């Protein structure tokens, strides 16, 4: 059976060119980039080359890129690093209810350390209202963190507008209010430019755009006051300690370069497949609805609620057919809670438990979409026939 992978938002296979570029750095070019000798100089040059590739992808300067071990670490670093470096200026942070847990949990940690956090609501499409950001800013606000696009529902937030609002408010306050965006779901997938967006910090993760797992980066605009998150060495310009993950960093660099080149074509093709899949699902299966915004939406993201049945049982049935999909975020699939993102949209518990996400990528084809459209309606039918909620609704 040919397997169909439609969980690219959870992780992607490493691009063969990325793997090829990484190969020499395991056994041959293995020096510690901090070492003075030739083994070290060689890998240091490789790390700096990758830094350039990543910086170029998002329109940043070399020195503004700090490599981390993941998107989660980049998020933790941004939130805690800004908070602890600026706590004398203020102790208030603004974020949204639909952020990834890698933002929400550091915020909760900071609450236990005396910080105040405002969690902004979103509208039924998952959009944050820049006016709400404006209203939430106080003279104690030091940081706003709003994701560029949501991983579950794919909604793309109005980052530029939010940036404008923050800058205006900050100039009135007379102190800096930093603006961070979690761009883990966008970098390498849609255009991301730090100056256009007007952000001070931006998180990335290589494995979401055909780089390896275990490497990410935080963009930190020059002049930003931030303390290190991982402490204990002079690496990364004293901003992130530990022997550099040379192989991973080289891989992230090449993945970034590939993405710059292929961005437009990847995006167009995915939008085509995405819209075909959304239309097909909504047409073929009664009582389904799209979650997230219809157009301000990641090219890869299809998220629908299927009434009367539950997410995991859909996934497992799809898996029997060789189709890999997901309910919301993979990171919390060990939990029983319904998705906090879907709940924030105003969905019922049932609706939140009954959602499924297909996320598309490089290797998906038209046939893959057709296969899903053929298989999935049958699965829904089977599960609905078992559902106590569906009774008497067959005719509706």
């Amino acid at each position, binding site marked *: 059976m040919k397997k169909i992978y439609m969980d690219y938002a959870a992780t992607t296979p490493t691009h063969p060119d990325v793997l090829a570029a990484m190969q020499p750095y395991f056994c041959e070019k293995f020096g510690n980039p901090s070492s003075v000798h030739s083994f070290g100089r060689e890998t240091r040059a490789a790390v700096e080359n990758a830094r350039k590739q990543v910086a170029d992808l998002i329109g940043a300067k070399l020195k503004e890129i700090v490599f981390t071990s993941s998107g989660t670490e980049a998020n933790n670093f941004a939130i805690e690093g800004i908070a602890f470096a600026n706590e004398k200026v203020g102790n208030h942070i603004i974020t949204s209810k639909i952020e990834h847990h890698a933002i929400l949990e550091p915020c909760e940690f900071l609450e236990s350390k005396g910080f105040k956090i405002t969690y902004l609501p979103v509208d039924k499409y998952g959009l944050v209202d820049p006016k709400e950001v404006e209203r939430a800013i106080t003279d104690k606000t030091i940081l706003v963190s709003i994701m560029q696009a949501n991983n579950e529902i794919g909604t793309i937030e109005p980052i530029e507008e939010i940036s404008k609002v923050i800058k205006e408010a900050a100039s009135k306050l007379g102190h800096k209010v930093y603006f961070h965006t979690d761009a883990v779901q966008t970098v390498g997938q849609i255009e991301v430019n730090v100056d256009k967006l007007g952000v001070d910090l931006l998180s990335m993760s290589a494995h979401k755009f055909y780089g390896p797992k275990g490497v990410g980066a935080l963009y930190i605009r020059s002049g930003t006051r931030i303390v290190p998150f991982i402490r204990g060495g002079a690496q990364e310009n004293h901003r992130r300690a530990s022997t550099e993950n040379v192989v991973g960093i080289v891989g992230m660099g090449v993945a970034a370069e590939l993405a710059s080149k292929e961005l437009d074509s990847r995006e167009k093709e995915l939008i085509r497949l995405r819209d075909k899949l959304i239309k097909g699902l909504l047409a073929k299966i009664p009582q389904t609805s799209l979650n997230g915004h219809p157009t301000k939406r990641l090219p890869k993201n299809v998220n629908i609620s299927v009434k009367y049945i*539950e997410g995991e*049982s859909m996934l497992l049935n799809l898996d029997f057919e060789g189709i890999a999909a997901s309910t919301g975020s993979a990171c919390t699939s*060990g939990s*029983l809670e319904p998705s906090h993102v879907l709940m924030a949209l105003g969905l019922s518990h049932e609706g939140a438990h009954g959602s499924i996400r297909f996320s598309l990528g490089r290797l998906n084809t038209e046939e893959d979409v057709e296969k899903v459209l053929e298989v999935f309606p049958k699965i829904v039918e089977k599960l609905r026939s078992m*559902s*106590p909620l569906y009774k008497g609704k067959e005719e509706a």
Partner: protein
Amino acid sequence: MPEPYSERVMDHFKNPRNVGEIENPDGVGKIGNPVCGDIMEMYIKVKDNVIVDAKFKTFGCGAAIATSSMITEMVKGKTIEDALKISNKAVAEALGGLPPVKMHCSVLGEDALKSAINDYLIKKTGKGLPGWKPRSEEGHHGKH
């Protein structure tokens, strides 16, 4: 980090036994709520104190469906007294174990069965299981 399901869970999930409703059941149990994402309905037919048929309808995850399937299999042919002895652990064991995070599904299964028996007893004798309350409603939903 979901722990994988056992083969028996997967078998009962893939081919659930006893799906459906019983017309004119002797007892019906409904348990669970949409908040936790699992809802079970269980139907039993009783003859001479023996459960001669059992069916279910379930909204829920793989473990919830497999548990419903397994428990309806287990009760068929049992007396009411023996059926009441089926614990959630016994169901989980019969399924080759459940991931810790899914153990509550087996509690739900036990509750659905007891609730059906309770309903049957009330209908038949006018009073149900003494002091019985669904364990699944004790609020196992902590924050993770």
